[in-house]
């Protein structure tokens, strides 16, 4: 009977631990990767400048065999345009506004620069098909940096779907844990169970970070371009840092709660 009672106790501890772990992970997800302001905070002026230089370099390489001067892209866009486009794409991804990336002013500038270059070379435009193809290919290089392999709308739908169920899951888990904790307080088991669940969550977070770090070369992630990859690496490493801070907080909190436990009364015969 006593063993069954003990087993049931451990089962209750385990259930609380899993609930706390679930709520922690969902909250980390909600307030990091799925939070637009968090992701936006990873971008800085240095990044926008690097993207500007990278894009112009790619455009120049693509223009080598076209006979058009590379100067047509010199003042086509600036780091501020890159910043504006970044914010627009993040808005498309995270806000439910279904807008498109607006590059009309940049395209207009490119066209005007090409016309100026042709005029200087004293060429008259007869091949409009070639002209349009050229403008399209240069603009595709610009848009390609932001539109995540043209999957932006799909990713946006995914984020909204996840967010919808995530908010619901957080509310449900929060209520469940609250009810559980009230029951534990009434049964005077609060200080016994909660530290275990906090330690459990900490151990699993540490293990997950270590395992994924060993199995996946997060520091070497390379996708689309070096500047975009740098942002992804930053997001992953700061999210890991947030998790590690949580681990420390949970461990300290768990130890403090145990220190508040009342010692067992020794019965003197």
């Amino acid at each position, binding site marked *: 009977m006593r063993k069954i009672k003990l087993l049931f106790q451990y089962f209750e501890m385990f259930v609380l631990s899993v609930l706390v772990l679930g709520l922690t992970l969902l909250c980390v997800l909600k307030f990091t990767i799925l939070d637009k302001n968090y992701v936006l905070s990873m971008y800085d002026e240095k990044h926008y400048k690097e993207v500007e230089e990278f894009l112009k370099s790619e455009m120049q390489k693509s223009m*080598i065999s076209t006979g058009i001067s590379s100067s047509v892209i010199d003042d086509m866009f600036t780091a501020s345009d890159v910043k504006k486009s970044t914010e627009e794409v993040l808005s498309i991804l995270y806000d439910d506004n279904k807008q498109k990336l607006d590059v009309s002013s940049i395209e207009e500038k490119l066209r005007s620069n090409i016309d100026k270059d042709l005029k200087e070379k004293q060429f008259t435009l007869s091949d409009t098909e070639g002209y349009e193809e050229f403008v399209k290919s240069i603009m595709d290089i610009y848009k390609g940096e932001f539109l995540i392999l043209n999957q932006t709308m799909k990713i946006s739908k995914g984020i909204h779907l996840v967010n919808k169920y995530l908010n619901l899951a957080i509310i449900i888990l929060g209520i469940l844990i609250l009810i559980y904790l009230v029951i534990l307080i009434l049964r005077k088991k609060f200080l016994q169970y909660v530290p275990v669940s906090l330690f459990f969550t900490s151990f699993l977070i540490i293990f997950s970070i270590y395992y994924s770090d060993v199995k*996946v070369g*997060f520091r070497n*992630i*390379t996708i689309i371009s070096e500047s975009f990859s740098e942002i992804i690496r930053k997001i992953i490493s700061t999210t890991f840092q947030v998790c590690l801070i949580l681990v420390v907080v949970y461990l300290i909190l768990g130890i403090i709660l145990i220190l508040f436990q009342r010692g067992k009364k020794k019965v003197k015969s």
Partner: protein
Amino acid sequence: MYKFRAIIKSLIIAFFFSAFMVFIIGTFFGVQVQRGLSILNTISIKLNNAENVEIHFDKIEKRLTQKPSWGSHIGRLVIPSISVDIPIYQGDSKLQLVDGAGHHAGSYFPGEGGSILLAAHNSRGLFYTLPQIQNGDIVTMEMTYGTFQYEVYKTNIADYRNIEAFPIQKEEEYLMLYTCYPVDNIWYVNDRFIVFAKLVGDQV
């Protein structure tokens, strides 16, 4: 002392719970976890910086023992008759074609006995003068493992989408050089000026 024991006890219980959880996840979701990690690993690649490489050529087997990495500098292309003297890089993407000729990764290397395909832009300093090449002109490929000479025997103009105009085969060794045509074009063009040259000498 009691509290210290309580802390240790809680840590041990939490540790066993964690181990049990890892076991459950590994047993029931191990395949999905591994698949997810593999997908992440495919995008976790280090960028290869182009660098000079030593290429080892097996004279008996007549093939390279190890292919050079993408972007590496593998040799020089010299055509004195049209003043071409440019580096050759492994790969023919935008980066390699900026200041040299790109070796198409799907073609053979000099000495392997098959078709060799090199591309370069039609800009001055690269293949701008290629259309001026004549039959009988000598093209030299100075690789890190040997020097190979080819004699031009024909030229052709073809659409870049016509893959038969760039035959990759292993029956005989010949070199194909190509660039966008006409060389004084504005915008992108579909035609390519192709030079064919057969192997006439090698020093491996």
